[in-house]
C-alpha cells in the first residue's frame, strides 16, 4: 500500500489543545510541512508566544524557546545573531505582536533581522478568555468591550502589514487566510516563501494570517470563517504588500 499523504515529520503526533475549528491547527501543520519540505528540522528554532500557542513546542518538533509576552522578536534577534545559519521563526498572536510586543515587533523589523514572523490575527485575545485585541474591529463585542469596541475609548484596529510596510528594511510582508482549501494552499505559499527568503539570508519576512477564534467570537467554526471573509478582510485586505524578491 502506497502512502500518498501523511502527517509531517516535524509535526509531533499529539492531540492539540486547540478548540475545534481553530486556525492554529492548520497553520502549525503548514509550518511543519514547510520545515519538512526544506529539510531544515535540525536547524529550525520556533519561538513560542504567550497565547493559545504557548505550547507550540508540544506540536512542532524542533528546537524552541518560550518567550515572555511580546518579547519573541527580541529573543529571535538574540538567537539569530548568535546562530545566523539557523532558521528562526517567531509565531505570535495579536496581543503578543501588536499590543505588549509592539516595540519589539517594529524594531526587529526595522533592523531587518533575518527572521520570519508568523502573525495569527484573530481579532481577540483567545487564551485569556476573549478580551479586546489591537486588531478587534469597531463595534466588535469582546469580554472587555461588552457593548462593542468604541473609537472614543479604544481607538482603531491596527493593521500590522500596513504598519510594517512603512519601514524600509522588511523584505517580505504578506497577509493571507486559511478559511478554505484554496486559501490554505495560497497562504502556505506565502509562509514557504518567507522561510525561503530567510534561508537565502534576504532579511525580515512577515506573514499575517487572518484566523478565527470561534469560541471567543461565539460563532461556529464555519460561521467564524465566513466572518473573516465578510468582515475582517474589509479592514485587513488579503494581499502581498511587499516582496523585494519579485521587485
Amino acid at each position, binding site marked *: 500500500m502506497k502512502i500518498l499523504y501523511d502527517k509531517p515529520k516535524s509535526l509531533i503526533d499529539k492531540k492539540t489543545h486547540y478548540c475545534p475549528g481553530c486556525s492554529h491547527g492548520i497553520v502549525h501543520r503548514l509550518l511543519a510541512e514547510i520545515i519538512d519540505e526544506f529539510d531544515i528540522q535540525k536547524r529550525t528554532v520556533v519561538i513560542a508566544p504567550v497565547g493559545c500557542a504557548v505550547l507550540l513546542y508540544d506540536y512542532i518538533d524542533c528546537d524552541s*524557546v518560550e518567550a515572555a509576552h511580546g518579547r519573541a522578536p527580541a529573543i529571535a534577534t538574540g538567537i539569530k545573531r548568535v546562530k545566523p545559519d539557523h532558521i528562526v521563526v517567531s509565531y505570535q498572536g495579536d496581543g503578543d505582536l501588536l499590543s505588549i510586543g509592539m516595540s519589539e515587533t517594529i524594531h526587529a523589523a526595522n533592523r531587518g533581522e533575518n527572521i520570519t514572523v508568523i502573525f495569527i490575527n484573530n481579532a481577540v485575545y483567545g487564551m485569556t478568555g476573549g478580551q479586546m485585541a489591537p486588531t478587534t474591529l469597531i463595534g466588535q463585542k469582546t469580554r472587555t468591550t461588552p457593548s462593542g469596541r468604541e473609537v472614543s475609548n479604544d481607538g482603531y484596529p491596527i493593521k500590522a502589514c500596513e504598519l510594517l510596510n512603512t519601514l524600509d528594511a522588511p523584505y517580505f510582508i504578506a497577509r493571507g487566510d486559511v478559511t478554505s482549501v484554496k486559501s490554505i494552499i495560497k497562504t502556505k505559499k506565502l509562509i514557504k516563501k518567507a522561510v525561503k527568503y530567510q534561508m537565502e539570508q534576504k532579511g525580515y519576512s512577515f506573514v499575517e494570517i487572518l484566523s478565527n477564534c470561534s469560541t471567543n467570537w461565539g460563532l461556529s467554526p464555519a460561521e467564524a470563517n465566513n466572518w473573516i471573509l465578510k468582515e475582517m478582510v474589509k479592514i485587513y485586505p488579503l494581499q502581498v504588500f511587499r516582496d523585494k524578491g519579485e521587485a
Partner: protein
Amino acid sequence: MNNKILMKGNEALAEAAIRAGCRYYFGYPITPQNEVPAYMSKRLPEVGGVFVQAESELASINMLFGAGACGARAMTSSSSPGISLMQEGISYIAGAETPAVIANMMRGGPGLGNIAPSQADYFQAVKGGGHGDYNIIVLAPSSVQEIVDFTVEAFDLTMKYRNPVMILGDGVLGQMSEPVVLPEMKKVNDDVDWAICNGGERSIIRSLYLIPENKLEMHNLHLQEKYEKIKNEYIKYEEYRLEDIEYLILAYGTTARVCKSSIDKLRDEGVKIGLFRPISLWPFPYNQVKKQLKGLKNIFVFEMAKAQFEEDIRLAVEGKISIKGFYKLGGAVFNSQEIYKNIKDNI
C-alpha cells in the same frame, strides 16, 4: 608580566567581558554606564562579536535571553531604572536556566532619580526584583581591578550554573579610572549540550510547566537545590584589619572602600576596628559574618541606601550585637571624614 593600563570602570568592564569570551552585547544607553555600550560597539566587531543597541532595556534582556539560550557568552548592562525594566526578563532567564551576565551601575532613585551613585538597588538585586522564587549571583566590586576580575568570574559562574549573574557597581566605580591588569583572551570551551542549536538533540528552553500539576513545584525544588549548591560552593568576601576587633564595620562596594580610609585613621588612634566586606551579596556570607561577633562592642553598617544591606547584616547577627546604620540616600556619597566622625561619635 604586570602590564597595568589606566582604564575607566565602565570600559574595563566591557574589555574584561570580551577577555572572558563574551562576544554578544545587547544594551540601551543610560547614564552612568554609557561607556559600556559605546566601548562594546567599537570593540566587539574587532573580535568578530556582535553589538546591538536594542530599542529598550526590555528588548535588551530578552535578546540576552535568546543569545544565552544558544549557550553563548553574552551580556547586557544598565543602571537602576533600566534594571527595573529587566526584572521580568531576569525572572524568565532564571526560570529557564540560561546564562546571562547583567551589570548594574547603580544611580539615585526611586523613579528617574539622578545620575549620582547609589546602593539602593540592593533589595532588587539580592532579594528578587522579578517575580517568583529565584536567586541570581550578585558580585559587588569596589575597584576597577575588581570590576575586571569579577566580570571574568561572572561569565564562568553563569555558564557553570546556568543562572543569571549580576555585577553590582555604582556610578563612582563606572566613572573612575584606575590602573588595571587585564587577563589574557580566554579560549572558550563551554559544555552547552543543553542549549538550542547545539547540533545534537532537540532542546526546549522554557519556564512554563503546567502538566502534570506538580511539574512546576518539581522545577522549583530543582532550582532551590541549585541555589543550595551555589551557596555551598561559592562565597566571596574581604576581611580588613579584623585581628582584634571591638568594633566591626560592614559595607560593600564604593562605601567599603571609603570606610577603609576611616578605619586606617581610627586604627592609628588605637581604636580596634575593622571591616568585613561582603563581595558576593548573594550568596551572602552570613556564616562568615557570624564568626566575627565574638567580643564585639558594636557593629556599624554603612550603605548608600536606607537599611537594605543592613537587613542581611541583622539576619546574620541575630540580635546578638547592637547595630547602628548610617545611610546616604538619593545619590549622596560618603566621605572618609564623615565615616570617621560617625564612628567616633558612637564609640
